[in-house]
């Protein structure tokens, strides 16, 4: 087993255990923190796989925005401070499990069909695909995603300007 594989299995174990803990612990706040750990583990896996850009973006979006938003929402919700003795297993859990497994079934075929790029020489460390990603985004041809990129950029800019307009009453 190479060093890379050892690192992979350590991180993967942490990630899976954290994900299982997230859906099974009683406290909502603990669940949110375990979710952060899961996200960090996935980011680390991206790093090991050599897509540093994805790893960094994973931390930025999921840990920095989504997790913080959730924890904020938990803190603003009354009565979550008293969580002791309350189980997470309500009557709804079979339906949730069914939904999650259905999602997995939908995900598996494209995952199997995609030709994943493989790092050949087994070297340790981060190889970046930031340049290739940027090229793909900016390519107006058939392989590019220029239109999607522009639409996303326009949407985000509109959201940003909208927030400024809401904040500035006198403009």
């Amino acid at each position: 087993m190479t060093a890379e594989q050892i690192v992979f299995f350590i991180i993967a174990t942490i990630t899976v255990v954290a994900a299982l803990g997230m859906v099974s612990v009683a406290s909502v706040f603990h669940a949110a923190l375990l979710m952060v750990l899961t996200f960090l583990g996935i980011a680390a896996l991206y790093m090991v796989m050599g897509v540093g850009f994805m790893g960094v973006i994973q931390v930025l979006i999921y840990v920095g925005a989504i997790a913080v938003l959730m924890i904020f929402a938990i803190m603003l919700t009354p009565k979550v401070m008293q969580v002791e003795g309350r189980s997470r297993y309500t009557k709804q859990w079979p339906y949730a499990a069914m939904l999650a497994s259905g999602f997995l079934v939908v995900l598996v075929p494209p995952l199997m069909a995609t030709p994943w790029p493989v790092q050949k020489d087994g070297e340790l460390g981060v190889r970046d695909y930031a340049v290739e990603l940027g090229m793909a985004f900016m390519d107006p041809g058939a392989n590019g995603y220029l239109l999607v990129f522009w639409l996303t950029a326009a949407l985000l800019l509109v959201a940003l300007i909208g927030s400024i307009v809401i904040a500035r009453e006198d403009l």
Partner: protein
Amino acid sequence: MLQAIDQIFITIFGLFSSFLLDTLGLPTELAQIIAILVQAIVVCTFAATTFLALTYTERKVIARVQDRIGPNRAGPFGLLQPLADAIKMFTKEQTVPDVADKLIFHIAPIFAAAPALMFFAVIPFGEDMVASDLDVGLIYIIALGSIAEIAILMGGWASRNKYSLLGAMRAVAQMISYEIPLVLSFMGLILITGSLNLNDMVVAQVVPFILLQPLAFLIFVTAAAAETGRSPFDIMEAESEIIAGFHTEYAGMQFGLFQMGEFLGFYGQACIMATLFFGGWRGPEMIPSWLWFWLKSWIGIFIFQWAFRSTFPRLRVDQLQAFCWKFLVPAAVLNVFVTAVVVKIAPVVSWQNGVLETVGGDFLGLGFGLGWLPVTAIYLAANAITIAILAVLYRGEVRRTVAQFEVRELSAEQPSAPRLDTEALPA
């Protein structure tokens, strides 16, 4: 000779690597891992030592501004004060509140200090002196800031203390808001350089970017001070309002770790300032590149300590958010627009097959070519236009500020209460 001193750390590291490989005869992979670990330890030790130095200079600088002497008992000029503090921190009792969420309470300080240390992995300390030359170094640094937010939330929540929770909520609201102008102030530099690699950004600076992007620099300094919770943006730990906020319940070295996170976060921002705006390790070849970087980073620290920490009174929560969303974000967006146009008119770098080449003469090397002069003039003119547009947009605020000073001069004999900005944030 100077070349040798400039490359001294790289030479030592090369000797160490060959010692591992040849003298000890370790397998390549193991030697690689040990070498990476040693790099990490060296960078972390440098950061921790800087933390000690920062606690001392912080007190000295603020003391001088406030016409005091500052620490002067332990050792000559009080130089041993940081050591005395460290001993005090380590020997103090660790108190834990009875109702605290024990595990999270103990993890939070570690989570606060770790991202601050990870910051230094991508900083180019000198020519070829960067521990991990990430192509996405700038995004990496922004992402680390979000881990620090989680740490503050953990500490504030786990303490089970109203003040701690309030402090944590304030801290995160502030950090999320100020992250936006911080990132937008980098955008102009990214447009100019065409890269997210911090070393590329240093190489691209034929002119220090502070001359090309003075407005972005001002936005960056303000947002960085807020992001690291430095006074006047320290409402998250405002001692007189919420008793130090999220770290109220922490004692001993756990409190020390939170302090370390804060101080190193702010040294990290000073390093970013030196790297992105002051030309990083580039400079006239009189002293080695790492010394240039070190001096510039301390200029950044001095700016934070003197111009922010010790000069301004603390802002109110609503003023803080209003300043970010109503002024800094629009100004930063406008700056990005203007820079995107100017980059097409006056490019600073050109990319040849993935290799960065600078256009125009070298300013920081003090070569006497003047190719940098027209470029700088164009950028400065663009910045002047941006500031003029902002002045027109915010003429109301400008007039109000001017009027405030006039009133104060006229009614010097019967001072009235300063006008409070009563505009509240929309619900």
